């Protein structure tokens, strides 16, 4: 199980503005271990899904070119303060993480 996702979400009118921080090492597979000089295998988030009221509001597919501890911000309509937003990810090793947070 991956580390929990940090979510900050605010609702203005009926528009939700979501910012999420996904702790993950996002290894590119191109970096060498400074001690052994061997390539560190690629380890990265391949897919991020955000859901509001059971509806998918964002699906992101990523490569190793997304920075370490990825940040993603997006927005959608039809939200109210207090609603829950769920963000989850899957990485190339099959590991997953899922966090649900209330929107302000």
């Amino acid at each position, binding site marked *: 199980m991956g580390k929990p996702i940090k979510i900050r979400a605010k609702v203005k009118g009926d528009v939700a503005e979501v910012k999420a921080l996904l702790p993950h090492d996002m290894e590119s597979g191109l970096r060498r271990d400074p001690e052994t000089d061997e390539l560190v295998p690629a380890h990265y988030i391949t897919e991020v899904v955000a859901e509001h009221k059971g509806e998918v509001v964002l*699906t*992101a*597919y990523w490569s*190793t*070119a*997304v*920075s370490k501890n990825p*940040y993603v911000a997006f927005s959608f309509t*039809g939200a109210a303060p207090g609603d829950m937003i769920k963000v989850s990810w899957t990485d190339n090793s099959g590991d997953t993480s899922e966090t649900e947070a209330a929107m302000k």
Partner: protein
Amino acid sequence: MKFDRRSLIKGALAISATFALPKMLFAARPDKAFQSTDAAGAIAELFGDTATASDQVTMKIPDIAENGAVVPVTVSTDIENVESISLLVVNNPTPLASTVNFGPRSLPNVSVRIKMGQSSPVIAIVKADGKLYSTEKEVKVTIGGCGG
């Protein structure tokens, strides 16, 4: 409940619609596009089409990135019915960095932070109503972070 022909057909349609919808939203990860080693190939693999430059696509990205490991990018557009926003770093070993698919309630903007191995043009492509709109910007990466 009566199982006449009409209700059976309605039921069958409703069930197929329920299964079809998540499939549309959860279109599989475009692995081949992510493996492509050139930007044009990745775009062809992802969309099977080429994009037209449009001033309706806005990309916020620094002109000079001190640290290529963390380059913040925001893409937004006033085009309607946006299906996806994709980002490509032309000079990266595999240019396609991120592709984001939207739902019916999503607003067409997204921010991420990307890695750039060296100075490169960065391309943002918006897909809306089946058409592709793009914008491109050259980003200089300062290796070593000494501002040179």
